Each structure stands twice: as C-alpha cells, then as structure tokens.
C-alpha cells in the first residue's frame, strides 16, 4: 500500500510537471510576442499546478523549482514590459485580478520584485504589502513555499544599510521587520503542519517537516546577512522577536531547530552580548526539546570564539559569561525534571569545556561545574547509562587535556567526587586516562597531598570497588592496569627526603588497601622507590641537626619491612624474598647490620616456610647466595649463621645437580675478593669437595637409574670453580687437586657408559684452552699454571 502511495505520488508529480510545462510553453509564446494578457493567463494556469495537495514536500519542492525557473523568465518579461512603457503600478494591479489565490500571490511577488527595483514606490511598502497578502495561504506546505519564494526574490532588495533601496523612508528597520514577519508566519505554518492530519501519520509528518525546516531557517540566515543589523538592533529587536516566536510556538521540532539556527547564523559576539536574553529562553522551551545539544553547541561556539583571539576574552569577563551559562544550565535542568542524566552531564561537560577555554585561570569555575554535576548525580547511585558514562569520561578528560597536567586537576576538589558515580569499569578507564596523561606529559607530582588526591582519583585501579566481580576482569587487562599503576608509582618523586617519605607513606597507605591481587604489582615499585630514597639519604652528609630529622634510613627500612611483609598475604613468597634481599643489600650499604640481618632472617623464613617448589628454591637459594656474598656489614657471628644456613639449604635441594651447583656457589660465601676477613680457603675447599661428592653421587644415580652416566658438565663447572679460587690464590686449592679433577673428567668422558654431550665437551675443551692460555701468559699467572698438565 505504501508502494502504491509512492507510485501514485510519482504519477501526480509527472502530471503536475506536464501541466506546468504545457502552460509554460504557451507562456513563452506569449512572452515572445509581448502579449501581456496571455502571459498573465498562462502563467497563472502554470502556477495553478502548485495548488496540488497530493504531493509530499519533497516532491512538491521539485514542482516548485520548475515553477521558480519559469517565474524568473516572467520577471524578466515584466521588467522589459515596464521599459516599454507599461506602468508597473498597473502591472501590480493586473496580476491581482487572478481568481485563484496561489497563482495570484506568486505573480504578485514576482511583479513586486520588479516594482521594488523600479523604485516607483518605497521598498518597504511593497514588501509590507507582499508579506501581508501572503497570509491568504494558510495551507502549510503551499504557504511555506510561497513565502520562501517571497524571501528568495526579496533578499537582494531589502532596504539594508548601504543598499540602493535604502532611503529616507526606507530603513533597515523595515527590512528587518519584513523578514521577521515572514519568518513568524512561516514558522506558524510549519508548526501547524504537525497538528493537521491524522494522528497515525505523526512520524511521517515529522519527517516531512524536517525536510522543510531550512525554508524557515533561511529567514534567520537572511537576517544575519543584513548589514544594518548591528548589535543594538539585534539585542533590541531581532533576538527578542525571534525568541518570542520560538517560545510561543510550543513545538519541539521548531524550538530545537530554531534555537540551533540562531546560534549558528548570528555572530558569536552578538551571542556573548545577549547571553541573558538567549539563555533566558531555554528554560521556557518544551520539556522534550533536546536543549543539551543546542546549549552545548552554543558553548562550543563561544569556546571557539574565545580561543580565536585573546582580544575577545575581556568581553567574556565583562558579561560574566560563565556565571550566566552556569545559571542558565541550572534553570534548564530545573525546568526539565525529566531530562535524562545524560543531558545533564552533557550540559556540564560543555560548560566545563567552555570555562576551560575562556577562564583557564579560574580553577574555581571548573570546580563549581564539577560540584554542580556532583549535586545532580547525588542520590542517583552509579550510572548505568552507557552514554552518560562516556559523557562523564569526556567531562573528566577535558581538564586533563586542557592543562596537560594532572596537578591542576588535582586541585579540583569535586573531581574525584564525580568519578564516584562511574561504574567501576569506567572508573578504571578514567583512571587509566589520568595515568596516561601523567606519563605522556611526564607530570611531576611532588607532594604527598597531590599524591593523596591522585590516588583518590585512580582508586578504581588501586582497589576493588564495590560490586566488582573479580572473575569478570580479564587477566591481561588487569595486568596492564596494574603495570600502569606501578609505572605511576615510580614517577612520584620529590628531591626533599621529608616530602618523599610522606609520598611513600601515602602511596603505601593506598596500595595496601588494594587487596592481595594488586600487591605483587604495586609493592615492588614502592619498595624500589623507597630504596631510592634510602640511597639518596645515604649519599648525604650526616644530618647536621642531629636527631631532629624524622626521615632516616632506619625508619624507611622499618616501613619497608612492614610493606614487604604484606606480600605474605598474597601470597608471593618468591617476590617477597627478592624484595627482602634487595632491602638487605640496601641496609648493608647503610651499615645497618641489625636491619640487614633482620631482612635476611625474613628471607630465610620465607625460604623455609613458604617456598616449597624445588625450582623456586633453586632460584631463591642462588639469590640468597649472591646477595649474601656481597654483604659486608655482618660481623663474623652473623655472617657465620647466615652462610651456614645458606650452605645447609643448598645441600638440601631436591635434585642432585641443583644441590651440586648450589653448594659450589656457596664456596663464594667464604672467599670474597675485596674483603680480607672473608678468605676462608679451607671452607671453600670443603664446599667444592662436597660439590664433587654430590656430582659423583649424581653420576652414580644416573647410572643406576638409566644405565648411563650423566654428563660431565657438573665436573667441568666445579673445575672452573677450582681454577677460579686457584687463580685467586686460595692456598687450599692445589695443583694436585686440579690435576686429579682433570683426570677424573677425562676418564669420565672416555667411559663407555658416559652419554655423549657436545656442550659439555666443548665446555671442557674451552676450559682446557683457558688453562693453556694462562700458562702461556707467562709472569705470575703463567708460573702458577705451569704445573698443571693438560
């Protein structure tokens, strides 16, 4: 049925065009033969085709355009006719003899155009007459097109300032009056369209109406083009009249479109100077009008205007643009209680953008906006509207983008309060945005207060917010987020140790609330940050003020101890162990033996109680050995205890090769090159021998289990240790011992049961080459090596 309707319409349009063309043909003939009477007759008949009610606006427009073209020719003819001596006044009367009103008025407008041009009557009188006579068309579509025609033919004939039609009697006031009146009538017709016809076609009508809206809007455009409309006239006449019409028409579509139109066609400067009036209209609009979009566009324009030149900024201040906008938004929200929260946020978001552009120095304004937003959001709980959430993100991102500096945003007390209304997912997104902004701009956040504020902002990442279901969080995303938090923690820095310590405490406070999942990400950067501070303090002169200073390495270490301890809840024993060792090393550098010892103790406890995985044990024991080896702070007793323990752990590893390697590594604990008091050659040898025993045992076990001996790698490794200590001058490492080890290895390699291992062979070969090389070096080393026979 709809298809039929469309087809019918096509048919009617075709018929209309045919009728129009036929009469246009006769009209042309009459024009060619200067036959005025026939020209009028056929042009009226031609225009009668526009009387149809059967076409949709879209199709009607097509017909109208054809008629429009024909009327141009007729207008030319009228012009020539007056040149030939026909009185324009007579012509003006003559066309009014037409019986049908629509053709009559089209002809009248056409002659009227010539009449104005002839200047035989003041332009304003003709214009006034035309715009009055057009009232006869009350059919919305036909009326709109007719008046659009009038607007079209008159737009270059308005008595504007500087126009040739301006005179003593004709002023720009008349021009404005004319356009305003035409606009008012057109808008009335346009609005009326909505109310006519059956209710079931409401949507169709709305669509048709929006096709016609530019006909109405064109009047505003014409107004904006009139030179003589200066600020005063705009303020006193033009704007109030337009707004009166807009408000009174009580039509959603018209109000939305026209408000937008006003904002788009008139200069920003005018808007700024008439903000009161313009904004005053908004609360009076229908509750369903999409005010947020319009108002947002206004603010956007004003923002751009402010950005265009610094010269205009005083104007903004002078008219108190911000206050006015802020008030207006408040009133609009009040007037439209049903406005969705999205609208509210969009409005505030635009206002914020505006104030950031116009008053970058007035942070209090920005904070006010956010505060108003918070008030509106309060009591509504978390936002569930997706778009609204996005809008909030935009709102919150605006200050970041503007200032490129989170520090400024941190001064906005309402900023975090707005964030509270985001769902946790978005909250995280926002937090990530903030962190990225910091990273990108390398923002220096240097006080504990700011850190406090910052962590308040990004708390979505720092801790679990209510109602988050952990299983829904993607593991990778989570890692990504937490990694960015760790990066952030490392960026917090202040040269002043006092402040830095405060920062650390603040960060600590926040991250400890983050729950076990986050700690393994957040604790390490904090620990390293703290250690950095320790090193900084350590590099300083002794504090000249004695005990007064509160930040001492000791204090930091206490804190660190407690911090690392929290990892036990995670649990992340390997990580904790590593961190303890790091701390121990730092304590070592600060000559704090008890502290270092305590850290080691913690590490050992962890090793004993928590680290049960054999692979982890291997890693851990090597770490312990490595760290311990570098410690110089310990007295003999403590050191003995710790090394003893370490050796003990090494020997208790599960796999023989691991045991072996750990044990020979322990040998270093007894021989530290640059520490004269740690050169216990005997115990080194003991370790190596023990390692050899274990290697042997490993070989035998392998033989027993698989029928072949394992690789000689372990032996070669031990050989290397021997050589190392030999070279370092450990008296317990003798040539004979090395010699016998070499033989052992050679025998093992030649044994039938040995498994060929190219890597081990190569390792051995290169070890031998090293010996040979050292021999040939000559001097003390060469001499030392000389006895070794390869």
């Amino acid at each position, binding site marked *: 049925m709809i298809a039929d309707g469309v087809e019918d319409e096509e048919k009617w349009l075709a018929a209309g065009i045919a009728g129009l063309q036929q009469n246009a043909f006769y009209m042309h003939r009459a024009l060619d033969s200067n036959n005025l009477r026939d020209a009028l007759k056929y042009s009226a008949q031609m225009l009668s085709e526009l009387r149809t009610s059967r076409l949709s606006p879209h199709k009607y427009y097509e017909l109208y355009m054809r008629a429009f073209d024909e009327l141009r020719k007729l207008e030319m003819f009228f012009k020539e006719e007056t040149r030939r001596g026909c009185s324009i006044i007579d012509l003006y009367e003559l066309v*009014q*003899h037409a*019986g049908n*009103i629509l053709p009559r008025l089209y002809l009248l407008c056409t002659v009227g155009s010539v009449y104005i041009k002839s200047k035989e009557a003041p332009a304003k009188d003709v214009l006034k007459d035309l715009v009055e006579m057009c009232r*006869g*068309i*009350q*059919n919305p579509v036909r009326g709109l097109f007719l008046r659009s025609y009038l607007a079209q033919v008159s737009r270059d004939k308005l008595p504007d300032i500087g126009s040739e039609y301006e005179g003593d009697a004709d002023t720009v006031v008349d021009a404005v009056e004319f356009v305003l009146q035409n606009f008012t009538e057109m808008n009335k017709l346009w609005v009326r369209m909505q109310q*006519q016809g059956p209710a079931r076609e409401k949507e169709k009508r709305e669509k048709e109406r929006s096709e016609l809206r530019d006909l109405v809007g064109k009047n505003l455009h014409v107004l904006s083009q009139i030179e003589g409309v200066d600020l005063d006239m705009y303020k006193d006449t033009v704007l109030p009249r337009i707004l009166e019409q807009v408000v009174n028409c009580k039509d959603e579509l018209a109000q939305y479109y026209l408000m937008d139109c006003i904002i788009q066609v008139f200069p920003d400067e005018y808007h700024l100077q008439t903000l009161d009036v313009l904004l005053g209209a908004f609360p009076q609009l229908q509750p369903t009008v999409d005010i947020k979009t319009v108002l947002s566009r206004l603010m956007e324009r004003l923002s751009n205007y402010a950005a265009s030149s610094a010269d205009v900024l005083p104007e903004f201040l002078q008219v108190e643009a911000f206050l006015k906008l802020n008030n207006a938004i408040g009133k609009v929200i009040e007037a439209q209680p049903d406005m969705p929260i999205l609208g509210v946020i969009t409005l505030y978001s635009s206002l914020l953008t505006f104030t950031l552009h116009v008053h970058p120095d007035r942070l209090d304004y920005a904070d006010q906006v956010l505060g108003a937003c918070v008030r509106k959001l309060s009591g509504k709980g978390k936002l569930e509207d997706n778009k609204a959430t996005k809008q909030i993100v935009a709102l919150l991102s605006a200050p970041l983008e503007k200032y490129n500096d989170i520090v400024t945003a941190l001064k906005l007390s309402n900023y975090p309060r707005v964030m509270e209304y985001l769902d946790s997912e978005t909250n995280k997104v926002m937090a990530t945005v903030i962190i990225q902004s910091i990273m990108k701009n390398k923002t220096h956040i240097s006080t504990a207060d700011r850190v406090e504020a910052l962590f308040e902002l990004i708390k979505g990442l720092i801790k679990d917010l209510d109602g988050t279901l952990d299983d829904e969080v993607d593991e990778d995303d989570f890692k990504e987020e937490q990694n960015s938090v760790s990066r952030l923690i490392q960026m917090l820095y202040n040269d002043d140790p006092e402040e830095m310590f405060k920062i650390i405490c603040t960060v600590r406070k926040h991250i400890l609330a983050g729950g076990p999942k986050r700690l393994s990400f957040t604790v390490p950067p904090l620990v390293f940050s703290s250690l950095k501070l320790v090193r900084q303090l350590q590099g300083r002169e002794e504090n000249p003020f004695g005990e007064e200073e509160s930040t001492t390495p000791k204090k930091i270490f206490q804190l660190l101890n407690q911090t690392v301890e929290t990892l036990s809840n995670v649990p992340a024993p390997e990580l904790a162990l590593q961190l303890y060792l790091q701390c121990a090393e730092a304590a070592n550098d600060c000559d704090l033996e008890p502290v270092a010892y305590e850290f080691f103790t913690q590490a050992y406890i962890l090793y004993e109680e928590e680290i049960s995985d054999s692979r982890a044990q291997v890693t851990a024991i090597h770490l312990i050995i490595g760290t311990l080896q570098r410690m110089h702070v310990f007295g003999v007793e403590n050191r003995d205890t710790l090394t003893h323990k370490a050796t003990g752990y090494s020997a208790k590893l599960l796999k023989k090769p691991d045991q072996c390697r750990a044990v020979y590594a322990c040998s270093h604990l007894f021989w530290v090159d640059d520490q004269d008091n740690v050169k216990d050659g005997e115990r080194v040898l003991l370790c190596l021998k023990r390692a050899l025993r274990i290697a042997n045992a490993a070989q035998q076990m392998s033989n027993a289990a698989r029928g072949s001996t394992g690789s000689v790698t372990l032996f070669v490794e031990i050989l290397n240790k021997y050589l190392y200590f030999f070279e370092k001058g450990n008296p317990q490492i003798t040539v004979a011992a090395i010699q016998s080890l070499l033989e052992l290895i050679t025998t093992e390699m030649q044994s039938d049961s040995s498994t060929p291992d190219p890597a081990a062979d190569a390792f051995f070969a290169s070890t031998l080459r090293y010996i040979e090389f050292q021999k040939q070096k000559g001097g003390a080393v060469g001499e030392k090596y000389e006895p070794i026979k390869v």
Partner: protein
Amino acid sequence: MLGKLLIQDSTKASWNYLVGAFKPPCNIFISFADGRSRKQVPLKKENGKTVMVALFQSQENIVGEVVIEPIQGKKVEHNGVKIELLGQIELYFDRGNFYDFTSLVRELDVPGELYERKTYPFEFSTVEMPYESYNGVNVRLRYILKVTISRNYVSNIVEYQDFVVRNYTPPPSINNSIKMEVGIEDCLHIEFEYSKSKYHLKDVIIGKIYFLLVRIKLKNMELEIRRRESTGSGPNTYVETETLAKFELMDGAPVRGESIPIRLFLSPYELTPTYRNINNKFCVKYYLNLVLVDEEDRRYFKQQEITVYRLLET
C-alpha cells in the same frame, strides 16, 4: 431541363425586383454634432453583435442632424418627418411591450415631397435621462433616436439610432465600512470587514477576515460578487441572480487568530451601478458573498449588499 433552368433564372430575377420594390425609397442617416469627439462605448445589440455607440449623460444637449437621401430618381411623398428621443424599458417576459419613460419629439418637416438629399438639424436640450442604459437578463433599458417619415397608404419609413446613457455620481459623503461578526455556535466564528459599503466601478474592495474560532477544517474561502436583478412587481416579480466574480481569498485551513486580507479589484468585472428602482419596473443590486468551504465541501456563506456607483472619470 433547360426550361426548368430558365424558370429558376427568372425566379431569381423577379426576387431581385421584389427586393428593390420593398426597399425604402430613401436612406436616413442620424448623426450627432459632436460625433467625432464624443466617447463611444460598446453596445450589445439584439442580434448579438456589439457596436460602438455614442455615450451621453443626463442633462446633456443631444444635437445632431438627420440626412434623408432619396434613392436615385425616386421621390418620397410624406405626411411629415419627425425625430423622437425615447427612453424605453423592455421586459423580456413581456416582449414587445415597451414602456417609454422618456419621449421627446421634434417635427423636422411639414408634409410634402422629397426629391433630393435633405439635411435636418435637430436639438434636444438638457434632456432628462435619469436612468442608465442597461442590458440585463430579463430586462433592457435603452435610449434611441427614432426618425419617422409618415406616409399615406404605405408604411412609415423609420430609422433608429441607439445611444448609451451613463450617469455619474460624486463620491458619497457617508461611506461606512461593513463590519460583522458571524458564525456557527462553537464551530466557526469569524469577523469580517469591508472598508466601505459603497464602491465605484473601478474601485477595489479592501478588507479582512479575522478568525475568532475555528473548529471545522476549512479548505478555502472565496469572495463572490453577485448581481440580483429583480423585474416586475407583485406576483409577477422575476428575480435573477448572477455570480459575476469568484475570487479566492484563502487556501488552506486557518487557525484561531489568523487574519486574512482581502483585496479585490472591481475593474475586471462588468458591473453596473446599483439601480434601486427604475421606473417601478426593475432594480439591480449587488452583493458580496463570503463563502467558506470545508473539507467535506460544505459551504458557509454570508451575503452583504454593497452599493455600486459610477464615479465621474477625470
């Protein structure tokens, strides 16, 4: 066959003879002294042809001459020649009866014989011609000059000359507007206003219609000019109404508060002045009929009489 042809031929010849025999023995020409300069207006004759005739108004002197020209070689014997100025009303339902409301006679010649062309000047001074020439549906009012050559035994020779009379009125001193509120209860209330109640023939009707209440879906609105010609009297009154103009004022459905302008030029329409009472024989009145048509093609109308007068053209 041949004979028959001949007979036909002789018949034709005798017809020619007969025509010649009944032809008046003279030609009569009536002309006005100021015929060349006097305004001529079209007049529709009974046979449907339009001729241009001289235009007079009341109280004018009607001066001219009558030329009688006997056919070559004939003499016209007569009992006297006279010229009459007649104002006649002819009612079509009473065809053949003329009521002469004006009848003036001038004797031009005493009985005698005419041998050659003779010219008789005539003059009717300040002739009272109160009524205008009128060509209506049922009635005609005409002015004629009638020249009669009276003869014995044979019929008189008569010649007519029509002329038109139009009488001009100064603009009325009182010319009130017509203003009225009409409507159908709870349906449609309008107020209309025509700027004047009296219009001259080339006048323009200015006015407006103001919609006070619109509860019906109107389609359009037009203004009609109607002429009501009423002839006879008593039981024999014949009324004829013609719509002379249909002028669309509005297209589409107005809403409350709309005001629609009226501007109707009267010049394109063939109006006459209003004739209130022409010799108790007929009257012609004009009405403006405002018609509103709704979407179901129902017509709502209000008729108002206007007075039309002929304004002296300057």
